[in-house]
């Protein structure tokens, strides 16, 4: 268990949140022009790394807002939290 600093409500327990998977996946502008492999790549393939990962989270039992989190998956440390639409912090890339 860990604490997440919701950008709207403040620090809350992880049990109030729901993970939305990897962040910053951009939907292709012309899906009809993609091959099956490219479409499957966009739709299903996700990173599952040990280390720093950019994720989407939803404060489902609180303000119900989505936001982005930079989390180190090796120790569950939250390194940064930022709102949807904001640019990811460059120092973790």
């Amino acid at each position: 268990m860990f604490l997440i600093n919701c950008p709207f409500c403040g620090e809350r327990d992880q049990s109030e949140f729901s993970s939305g998977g990897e962040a910053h996946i951009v939907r292709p502008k012309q899906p009809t022009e993609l091959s099956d492999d490219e479409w499957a790549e966009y739709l299903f393939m996700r990173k599952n790394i040990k280390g720093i990962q950019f994720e989407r989270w939803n404060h489902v039992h609180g303000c119900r807002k989505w936001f982005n989190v930079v989390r180190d998956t090796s120790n569950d440390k939250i390194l940064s939290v930022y709102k949807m639409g904001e640019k990811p912090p460059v120092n973790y890339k």
Partner: protein
Amino acid sequence: MLDILHPNISNINKNNIDINLSEEKIKINIRGKNKEFFTKVGKILSIILPTESNTSSSNENYDVLWLSPDEWMINFDENKNSNIFDQLYKDISSLNFGSITDISSQLICINIKGENIFELLSSGSPFNFEKFKNNVGSSTQTIVNHIDVILHHKSKNNVNLFVRRSFSEHLYEWLVDSSNFV
């Protein structure tokens, strides 16, 4: 058998904790973010919407709870201003300045009073009540006994707990049972 329209919630006093049902409350959910929305709501309710997270604003007629950056809940006694929903709907929702929803039937308001109420709530919630209990007017959405609730610290050691009607009896029974152990 659960009667969801009239939940079986009676007044209980255990270990300096009073638990009772506040059925008469009207609840209205309002959503919006543009300037016209804030102006119209301010004019109709004579209240400034709280923009700081986990806070509320009150006057003699209404309590307005912050739920998220663009969502609030207004609650008040049904005897007062019964046409306020129509007024808000006409001036905001129908003009697309925001959205107004009557959620009176969706939520039940359970009032909890007493010195040990925060120990009781803490025993089933991951929320840290330290700041909440020291600030009258605080509001929050969290989980109590795995159930989504909205909490409003109305006055010192007096909390209004809003819960979905279908969960209300179960949560009430948990509150009564847990109050034996605080």
